């Protein structure tokens, strides 16, 4: 979401990490495909329904938010190495967070509907997460780990207390614009509430020295992240397998299985494991020799995507949601008339691919021509 | 308030130390007058030079004793305060019949295992009798060995004869008298002074006489040379008077305080007027007059030929009843000449005083062992200095008087008349400083109390 991630080396030229570019590109592409199919074709027909069911719906957001934490850690390291003071770092972080939150609210109003302003979607979440990372930066590792574990463990409890199912009876986040619903939505019941989604950026922040701390080419440098991945995966499996068999009194609400809304404990642990494993593997394979022909070619295609992930997030919504609303108004008074029924899933899938290709070309041109972008605006305003 | 007039009789180390200390301690103005019968101040501390070469030698007190290994050493401290550089002195060699016995190993190898064992036994006995702390305190408030046992009885117990001879030769020049005329304690002390754990020896670089010159330079006193004191008394009002002779002219002056810093042998030359005073001084002299004698023969040679065999600063020779031979040229690294000084003590010294200088120089040259080298071939000049009765030391059985009584013989009618002398302590320069410190402190306290002062 922010500027290009760099390794905190002493040289003036920032060294990009191909692993992060590639993984973020994968996350964005997944997100585009899922959003296109979900919004345009999810309930078009039975085949679309089935296809939608099998979409890797929950894969992109964990990757993205995990990478946000990783990126922030690397960005801080780079800034500190260049002599930026802690106060200046905090200011930049908080400004960026507020920019993202503001953009998120504006996005909700302009892209979705005014009543979706406080749906606490991913943009507002990433903004809040960034501000929280400024606090995490000052905390000792043990305190951050404790906070992360508390968030994970208390989330199911909070969902019970807040009566999560009452906000999701119609399979989307439905709330009243009251202080209660807005606050609870931010904390527990929204699309991307702080509990438990804060686990991902915080885990990314903590895992960065584990993954990037050792020599990229050394097998020994992979031992600890792989051990962490295995532990997370095992815990996820335990949650998946054990949870259904617990007595009812212990199965504290809506946390069994692999669900994204709400983010079940198994889902959080499992997707965290997948994110960490992916990044560790890509770091081992790609970052060892960033100048190799194959890696360089990969970076040439994924670089623009990664650098402009924020812009792509907004743009891909614009290019498929606005036409959807316009078409809906054209056929009736309700802009949401064609939502999820506009076309068959394969067509939606094809449009998603076209969007991806178009974004690659577009932002490669933006980079060449040094045209303004959302990322540039954020840097200009906040740094 | 008029300044306190103080007379010091004697311009030797005792008088100079007393004057120096008084000026430092006195809390009111004092006027000091030092009477000295000879043409120089310094007394037994004398560092002249040869005529044939600008080479100096010690004619009197040749070494200073360093007690700082045990506790504070006021003399060492005073020398440092006067800014005088010092050199350590050391030597353990004893020459017996042309044999150099340098160490305990040589005693074993050359005198035999029995002699070695006897030496170690004597050493152990001496250390058992006197700890370094007791050694340090002896002569001050310590009570002398009250037994009537003389040191010769201790020596008689040393067997075999070779060991006894070795010890006698080592100790003779320090004893300055026969073992039968001194106490066991004193005799053992003279042995233990060779042990660095008890005491060290040093000299002042450039000559020990620099000590008295430094004192004289710092003392704002009127020094009257060639003016011997002939009588001391007090008036009916209690103030003291001093009669001296300037040329043929007798002079009498009144003083508030009189300090007599004369050697024991010179005290009888002063007439102490007044029944009580005369009796007190007579008792004092009778108690302390146990004269010991020294004689120094110092010879200048072309080069230090003896250093092939012995390199110590001093070594003992079994001639003249046992004498100490100083390598005086070792104190001056710049000289190429050799200077040997014979310190003859006791009866041999007294008897030798009657001989002429040339005779004594010849005897000294004859006393050199052949193995050391031919002294006559390198001879340049010889000098003799006689010190009969220059030192007093209490023999065995005599108890030391309390320190105050030693220094103020007649406190009733003459509370401001004091005595200072090395014989009141250990007959050394350290002793004379202790004596001078005691009296200077006493007088300063009386000055602080007021015009009359306490009794």
């Amino acid at each position, binding site marked *: 979401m922010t500027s290009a991630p760099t390794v905190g080396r002493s040289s003036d030229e920032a060294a990009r990490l191909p692993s992060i570019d590639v993984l973020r590109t994968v996350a964005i592409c997944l997100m585009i495909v899922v959003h296109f199919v979900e919004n345009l074709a999810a309930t078009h027909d039975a085949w679309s329904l089935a296809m939608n069911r099998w979409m890797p719906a929950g894969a992109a957001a964990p990757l993205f938010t995990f990478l946000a934490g990783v990126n922030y850690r690397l960005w801080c390291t780079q800034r500190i190495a260049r002599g930026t003071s802690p106060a200046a770092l905090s200011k930049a972080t908080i400004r960026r967070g507020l920019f993202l939150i503001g953009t998120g609210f504006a996005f909700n109003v302009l892209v979705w509907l005014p009543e979706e302003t406080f749906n606490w979607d991913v943009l507002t979440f990433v903004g809040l997460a960034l501000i929280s990372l400024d606090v995490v930066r000052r*905390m*000792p590792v043990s305190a951050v780990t404790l906070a992360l574990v*508390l968030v994970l463990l208390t989330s199911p409890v909070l969902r019970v207390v807040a009566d999560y199912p009452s906000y999701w009876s119609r399979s989307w986040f439905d709330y009243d614009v009251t202080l*209660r619903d807005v606050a*609870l939505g931010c904390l527990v019941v929204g699309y991307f509430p702080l509990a438990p989604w804060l686990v991902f950026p915080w885990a990314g922040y903590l895992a960065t020295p584990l993954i990037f701390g050792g020599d990229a080419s050394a097998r020994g440098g992979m031992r600890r992240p792989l051990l962490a991945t295995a532990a997370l995966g095992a815990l996820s499996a335990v949650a998946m397998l054990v949870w259904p068999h617990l007595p009812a009194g212990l199965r504290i609400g809506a946390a069994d299985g692999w669900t994204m809304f709400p983010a079940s404990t198994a889902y959080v642990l499992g997707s965290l494991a997948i994110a960490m494993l992916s990044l560790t593997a890509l770091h081992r394979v790609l970052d060892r020799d960033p100048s190799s022909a194959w890696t360089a070619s990969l970076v040439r295609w994924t670089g623009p995507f990664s650098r402009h992930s924020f812009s792509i997030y907004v743009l891909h919504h614009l290019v498929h949601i606005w036409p959807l609303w316009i078409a809906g108004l054209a056929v009736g008074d309700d802009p949401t008339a064609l939502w999820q029924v506009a076309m068959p899933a394969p067509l939606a899938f094809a449009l998603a691919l076209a969007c991806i290709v178009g974004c690659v070309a577009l932002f490669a041109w933006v980079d060449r021509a040094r045209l303004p972008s959302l990322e540039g605006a954020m840097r200009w305003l906040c740094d | 308030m008029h300044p306190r007039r103080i007379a010091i009789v004697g311009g030797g180390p005792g008088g100079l130390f007393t004057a120096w200390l008084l000026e430092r301690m006195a809390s009111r103005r004092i006027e000091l007058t030092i009477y000295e019968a000879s043409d120089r101040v310094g007394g037994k501390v004398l560092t002249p030079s040869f005529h044939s070469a600008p080479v100096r030698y010690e004619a009197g007190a040749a070494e200073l004793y360093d007690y700082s290994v045990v506790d504070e050493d006021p003399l060492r401290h005073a020398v440092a305060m006067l800014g005088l550089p010092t050199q350590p002195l050391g030597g353990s060699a004893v020459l017996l019949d042309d044999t150099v016995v340098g*160490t*305990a190993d040589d005693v074993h190898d050359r005198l035999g295992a029995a002699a070695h064992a006897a030496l170690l036994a004597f050493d152990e006995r001496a250390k058992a009798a006197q700890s370094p702390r007791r050694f340090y305190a002896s002569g001050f408030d310590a009570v002398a060995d009250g037994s009537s046992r003389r040191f010769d009885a201790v020596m008689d117990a040393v067997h075999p004869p070779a060991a006894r001879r070795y010890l006698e030769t080592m100790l003779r020049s320090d004893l300055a008298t026969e073992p039968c005329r001194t106490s066991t304690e004193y005799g053992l002390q003279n042995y233990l002074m060779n042990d660095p754990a008890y005491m060290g020896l040093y000299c002042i670089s450039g000559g020990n006489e620099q000590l008295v010159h430094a004192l004289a330079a710092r003392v704002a006193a009127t020094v009257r040379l060639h003016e011997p004191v002939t009588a001391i008394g007090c008036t009916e009002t209690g103030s003291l008077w001093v009669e001296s002779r300037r040329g043929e002219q007798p002079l009498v002056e009144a003083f508030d305080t009189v300090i007599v810093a004369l050697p024991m042998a010179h005290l009888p030359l002063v007439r102490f007027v007044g029944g009580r005073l005369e009796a007190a001084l007579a008792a004092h002299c009778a108690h302390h007059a146990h004269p010991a004698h020294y004689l120094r023969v110092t010879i200048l040679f072309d080069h230090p030929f003896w250093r092939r065999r012995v390199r110590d600063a001093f070594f003992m020779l079994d001639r003249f009843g046992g004498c100490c031979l100083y390598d005086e040229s070792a104190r001056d690294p710049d000289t190429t000449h050799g200077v040997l000084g014979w310190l003859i003590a006791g009866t041999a010294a007294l008897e030798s005083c009657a001989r002429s200088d040339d005779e004594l120089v010849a005897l000294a040259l004859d006393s050199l062992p052949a193995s050391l080298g031919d002294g006559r071939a390198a001879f340049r000049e010889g000098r003799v200095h006689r010190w009969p009765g220059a030192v007093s030391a209490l023999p065995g059985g005599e108890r030391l008087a309390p320190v105050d009584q030693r220094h103020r013989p007649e406190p009733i009618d003459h509370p401001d008349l004091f005595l200072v002398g090395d014989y009141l302590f250990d007959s050394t320069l350290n002793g004379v400083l202790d004596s001078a410190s005691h009296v200077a402190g006493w007088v300063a306290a009386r000055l602080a109390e007021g015009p009359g002062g306490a009794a």
Partner: protein
Amino acid sequence: MIRRDAPLDGNGRPARHDGSGQELLGQVRVEEVPVDDAVLELVVLPADDADGTRDGEGHEAAALAWVAACRADTPPVQVPLYGTTVIWSPSRAAILAPHAALVAVREALLDFARCDAALRRLEGEAGVLLGRLDEDAPCAVEFDERHSDRQASLEERFRRSVRLRADLATLAPAVLRPPVHPPTLAAQLGERLRERTRLADRLEFVQAKADVLDRVYDLCAQRVGDFAIARRHLRLEWVIIVLLAAELVVLLVEVLAGLGTTPTP
């Protein structure tokens, strides 16, 4: 010990028969004796007559030249004593003594050489540590996160300064031992060598340097310790903050959730 049997001249090279006094050394055995962390080359020449004089002055001169040839930073120390001569420099030494005294003199010389070598080592160590003092002294005033990469090096130098102090304490009794009385030849030689090389003064100088190092590294250790404790306390404080924050969030959610409930009549 290595035995090298070779005639040596005054420069430590094989002797030539050129008529000089140096060839008098003849067949000598050069011992290499370890002294502390150095090696001392030692030549022992017995005197020929019981009186202690050597067979001509040539031996002494040749021995002196051989010892001097090692090019130490100070000229050799020569101690003649009652028929025995010891010539010493930090890397070479020669003993000329009567047969009966050889063993004792050799032991006394080696004992002194070990003390001197140990003291030289400690002098070097103190010099090295003092050279780092300017770099480390700021940490004696303040130690925080910025200096945490220096903690290992500070610990290492603290250990070395403690080691220096311990070695000085171990060496001091040997250097400052009181003179022996009645004196033996070996004891006197040892005392003379210690005096001539100013062992006691040098020990005092190194102890003074060690005092400075102790002071600075003690303070650094205190600061590091204070920092570690502060960091531990900070950790504990953050843990408490996190727990309290979690409790607050749970309470907040409870309160907010309770806002929506309708009271029963």
